């Protein structure tokens, strides 16, 4: 992955919330922004994992019964 992810505040947070169609008051933004940073701080630790062609751990069963 190319470089660190920007922190989730200000215009970045505004735009993410707009794209999610989630109305966040200034008070909610003050809470949600750090929470997003916290989760991304964890998820970004997966950046360096070489996954090759590995498939996600999800599946779909085409049977009806």
């Amino acid at each position, binding site marked *: 992955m190319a470089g660190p992810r920007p922190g989730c505040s200000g215009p970045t947070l505004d735009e993410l919330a707009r794209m999610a169609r989630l109305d966040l008051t200034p008070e909610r933004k003050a809470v949600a922004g750090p*929470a997003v940073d916290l989760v991304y701080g964890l998820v970004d630790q997966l950046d360096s994992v070489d996954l090759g062609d590995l498939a996600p751990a999800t599946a779909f069963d085409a049977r009806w019964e």
Partner: protein
Amino acid sequence: MEPYELRLSEAAERIRSRELSPVELTDSVLGRIEALDERVGAFAAVMGDRAVGAARAAEQEIAGGRYRGPLHGVCIAVKDLLDTAGVPTTSSSRTRADNVPAANAAVVDHLEAAGAVIVGKTHTHEFAYGVITPTTRNPWDLDRIPGGSSGGSGAAVAARMCQGAIGTDTGGSVRIPAAVCGTVGLKPTYGRVSRRGTASLSWSLDHIGPLTGSVRDAALMMDVIAGYDRADPATRDVPVPRHGEGLSAGVENLVLGVPRNYFFDRIDPEVEAAVRAAIGRLEDLGAELREVDLPHPELYMPAEFGILVPEASAYHQETLRKLGDLYTEDVRMFLEAGELMLATDYIRAQRVRTLIQQGWRDMFAGIDAVLAPTLPAVAARAGELAFTWPDGVEEPVINCYVRTSAPGNLTGLPALSVPCGFNSEGLPIGLQIIGRPFAEPTVLRIGAAYETATDWSDRHP
């Protein structure tokens, strides 16, 4: 001895032999709830009239020679995440304060078909999104938490307000309350128990399992609740064994893995001492111990939260917009955060889960189960947000409890918590036994061997 003091298997035997009436047992259990639950707060709803009606029906059936099996007439509590027809099912959330389902969850259907008497709905951390269960206290010390999210179920079993309870486990939520409340708790293999009719936290990681006073009791509940269900796409059509059949087989000829890394990396010394003593006890009983290195330990917490957080937000997407103010603050914060994550990051976490699964499969070569602490610490004090380790590092309670639980959810492997001692303050400690896929009988067998050789499960708050 009062009837409420009986373990599930003991009550079942007395009911089968007609030494004990289901009505007598239910009256005793309801009286226990009446006497204690004002202080413990385990129950979101007590189903007194319905329970007495079910007990009377069970009594008549048994008197008529129609005994259904070990759960017939015994008292079971169900986490308030599972639908119960005609009974409020709130997930301990104000957003579902008026929710009265028309149908039962699959597990509730199975329990009722087995003749169990459902005595009430137990509290959960709101929508299972946390490990505190703030409505409920730990029966061993009312100033401490019962763990969570199935904290009501753990507290109810520990305080003997039921013979067994149902919990759900997405990041440890059966095993965490089992460990800190001093009960047995089994998170079965992913896909072993249907989740139909159960509010989801994370479809990829949710499991349903029993909390009980003994390993045998957990086996009896598994016999009833396990099985394939097309309505839950995660379930697998794998034959359901008799979970109690091998419980007396001991641990000779079993090879048990003892982790060199991760599980003991940052742990309360008293907890480590109790768990290592339990491992030694199993070796004394004839098990062969083999050190193992857990694969990819640095990926467990990132993958767990990378999957859980966006899936939880997807489940609550509509309600968050309509009733956002009704969520508790900690849950709402993470639901909002999950809305703002990228799909590719979520899928990356799902791909890492595959990698973790492959690593654990390889690690399990030649071993039957892995032994580990269920948790690195005992029950936190109510209101305590973080543990402070001897090196000065502060770790949030949720991170501490989830980091030793998450491997079981990510791998989907069956994981049993059994009591293995108490710290110097009298707080319970749990030993975790993690087995191969669908090897619930093996982890129960190991747990039963340890339980039989010790008296930890005989102690009560």
